[in-house]
């Protein structure tokens, strides 16, 4: 870089920063109340857009000096829609489960009046004497937010809010460093890829930088194919510029000229937010030619995936960018040597890239000081399934699974018992209670048979069948297998057939050993990561829950009462409150009718096991039960 280039950077950035800070201060003008509504996809599904409109309507009706803005996801998805009201004289207060009626009340009572409506409060954002703050929640002691820090607090469609909160500062700093120095910093930080494999990021960049061939490319992998994970979506929807900044720094370090963000088509809101972010960054000269007056030029294009899990695999992703079907290629050569259009290409996960700015800003030592020896930094998980606090969490590496599930996630709802935690999606595994004290890091999870994967964490309780979950994942990978190599194509098919037989009660005892044998074969013989890891859900459930397999095979019984072919719904005659008709009305197929004494009876021939009657039967009667094997249902006389 020429010296004039370097010298131009500071004033160019300074100008942007001053502007952005003035904009941010203007937003929080003294005396004005600011309402933020979380409208990421999780919020929208819970009705956040209606809530947003209700706030806007009420504010304009009462003609108040109050700004209503949209932000991303705070991670407390269990309480969506979430709203934060910052009123002068009060701490900023976070409200959960808000609906349009509550929104109207909050404006009337709190914004216009002085009643903070404690009944709707989730917590305050800072410590105060009035309301318990979120930082005093037990979970806060385990959390450490680096890359989720902005999420839910700034408007993702407003680049100035990002800049005012320290955004693009790392880019400015990096541009004043030599690219080798940037790589060195990332290397020393110990950052490993968060896309699943955990490859050292700095090393990947170095290989790309040192590989011959021009132009070089930088790709952000936002395909997030794990069907139970939503971290990348949330980050892109809530803080898209942090991803762009990471890409810019990586491109500067490797010498890439063109970048691609590869986003899943199933995430329309993420796509939209990236488009807006790209437009704004270009407008401010943070993207495009001669960025910030330096002689570094880089552009980013958005590419929408088309719904194929295997395209998350880097070589398949590249094939799809080239206009091919997304089938993986044998590595080496690795993309860093020969990637997109045969040129050196770095592919990094969304989270990996988002860490970069923090490393540049705070230094490699700071980052390396968080987490464990082999796994530096934090881990981000999407908690879902049978857990009280579903949502996003960020904890230092080395935190135990138990802490994440029971302290941060507040455990299992409805007084049920924990059974297993599924980590890493279709490539990961199911870990039982006995593994809960494992520290979360790349290596210990692998040893237990699971995998960090992308960060999906689905908690399963006593009602979840372990054979069924194995069957579910194998069905998924079998369908998504691209068919290129035999082990994966045929092996997953055979595994699926055996698992299906077992869940339908047609399994034989020798099938279990055959399954183990096949799983090991597919693991050893497949070409890409999809096939190599597809057996993990089977292998871990066999390892930790073999008794469930055996119950299905030997007794035709599903211990968790889940497999539809192995259960029957039954109404306990002595519990049925005869004058109540709740189950009759709710049955999808008119399979329930009263007998002479008006006790309700299910016609087993007609029953489609839709679970409606079990939900409908009032709690105080609790007369509907599931029985397994179905033969347990006493034969009734009409």
């Amino acid at each position, binding site marked *: 870089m020429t010296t004039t280039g370097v010298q131009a950077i500071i004033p160019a950035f300074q100008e942007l920063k001053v502007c952005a800070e003035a904009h941010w201060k203007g937003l929080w003008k003294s005396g004005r109340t600011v309402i933020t509504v979380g409208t990421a*996809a*999780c919020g*929208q*599904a*819970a009705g956040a857009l209606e809530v947003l409109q209700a706030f806007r309507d009420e504010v304009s009706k009462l003609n108040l000096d109050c700004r209503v803005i949209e932000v991303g996801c705070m991670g407390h*998805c269990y309480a*969506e829609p979430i709203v934060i009201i910052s009123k002068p004289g009060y701490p900023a207060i976070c409200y959960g489960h808000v609906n349009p009626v509550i929104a109207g009340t909050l404006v009337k009572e709190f914004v216009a009046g002085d009643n903070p409506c404690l009944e709707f409060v989730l917590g305050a954002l800072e410590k105060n004497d009035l309301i318990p703050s979120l930082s005093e929640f037990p979970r806060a002691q385990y959390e450490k937010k680096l890359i989720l820090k902005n999420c839910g607090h700034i408007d993702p469609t407003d680049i100035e809010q990002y800049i005012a909160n320290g955004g693009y500062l790392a880019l400015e700093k990096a541009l004043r460093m030599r690219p080798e120095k940037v790589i060195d910093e990332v290397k020393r930080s110990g950052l490993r890829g968060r896309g699943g494999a955990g490859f050292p990021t700095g090393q990947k960049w170095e290989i790309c930088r040192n590989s011959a061939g021009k132009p070089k490319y930088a790709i952000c992998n936002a395909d997030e*194919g*794990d*069907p*139970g*994970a*939503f971290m990348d*979506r*949330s980050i892109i929807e809530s803080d898209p510029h942090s991803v762009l900044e990471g890409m810019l720094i990586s491109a500067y370090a490797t010498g890439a000229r063109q970048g691609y963000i590869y986003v899943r*088509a*199933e*995430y329309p809101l993420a796509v939209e937010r990236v488009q807006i972010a790209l437009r704004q960054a270009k407008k401010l000269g943070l993207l495009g030619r001669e960025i910030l007056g330096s002689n570094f030029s880089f552009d980013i294009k958005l*590419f*929408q995936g*088309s*719904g*194929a*899990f295997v395209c998350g695999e880097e070589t398949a992703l590249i094939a*799809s*960018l*080239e*206009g*091919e*079907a*997304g089938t993986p290629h044998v590595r080496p050569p690795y993309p860093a040597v020969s990637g997109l*259009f045969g040129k050196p290409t770095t592919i990094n996960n969304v989270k990996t890239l988002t860490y970069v700015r923090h490393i540049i800003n705070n230094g490699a030592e700071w980052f390396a000081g968080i987490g464990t020896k082999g796994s530096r930094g934090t881990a981000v998980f*999407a908690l*879902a*399934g*049978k857990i009280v606090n*579903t*949502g996003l969490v960020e904890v230092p590496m080395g935190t135990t699974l138990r802490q994440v599930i029971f302290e941060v996630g507040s455990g299992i709802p409805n007084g049920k018992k924990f059974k297993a935690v*599924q980590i890493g*999606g279709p490539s990961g595994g199911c870990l039982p209670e006995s593994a809960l004290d494992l520290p979360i890091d790349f290596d210990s999870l692998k040893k237990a048979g699971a995998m960090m994967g992308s960060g*999906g964490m*689905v908690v*399963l309780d006593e009602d*979840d069948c372990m054979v069924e*979950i194995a069957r*579910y*994942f194998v069905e*998924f990978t079998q369908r998504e297998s*691209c068919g290129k190599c035999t082990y994966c194509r045929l092996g997953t098919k055979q595994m699926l057939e055996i698992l299906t037989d077992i869940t339908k009660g047609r399994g034989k005892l020798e099938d279990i050993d055959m399954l183990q044998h096949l799983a090991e074969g597919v693991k050893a013989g497949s070409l890409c990561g999809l096939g190599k890891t597809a057996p993990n859900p089977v292998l871990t459930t066999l390892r930790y829950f073999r008794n469930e397999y055996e119950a299905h095979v030997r007794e035709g019984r599903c211990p968790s009462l889940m497999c*539809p072919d192995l259960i029957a719904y039954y109404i306990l005659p002595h519990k049925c409150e005869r004058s109540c008709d709740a189950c009759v009305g*709710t049955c*999808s*197929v008119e399979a329930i009718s009263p007998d002479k004494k008006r006790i309700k009876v299910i016609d087993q021939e007609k029953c*489609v*096991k*839709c*679970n*409606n009657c079990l*939900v*409908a039967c009032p709690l105080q009667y609790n007369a509907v039960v599931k029985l397994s094997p179905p033969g347990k249902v006493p034969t009734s006389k009409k």
Partner: protein
Amino acid sequence: MTEEKIKQHTRQVLKSFSKKKGNLIPILQRVQGRLGYLPREAMLEVAEFLGLPPIHVYGVVTFYNQFRLNPPGKHSVRVCLGTACHMKGGYITLDAWKRRLSIGAGETTTDREFDLDTVACVGCCVMAPVTVLDEKPMGKVDPTKVDGLLLAFEREREGKKKQ
């Protein structure tokens, strides 16, 4: 839609693209966005534009789950079968949709009102089980809610008829 119309729409889309093979998927996405599906004529048109054998285009279209070869229904129903949704009864919800619409996943009702399909996680796992109705993710959709949603559509249709 007539063949001629399909070709016209496709050419309209092609205008904003250069003849690079890497544009294949974005082009197909844009064409499907306009037509709702990818008819044979459209694929042929795209193949010619990019100078690719039609079989390549067909191969790509059938590889990716997003592309469809037949026209969609007026309303799209996508039942999420991601891990969280599946474990919270997504498969029961899918059964309910199938029963009520009398079609299987990947099919369209004969009156072309609805098409039914599955999707693997739309990122709203916390609201499981999720059904995406006309692009809008709806949370906690069980068989009873399926009936409610269908009823709402029926009302709407009747309301329109009266007008």
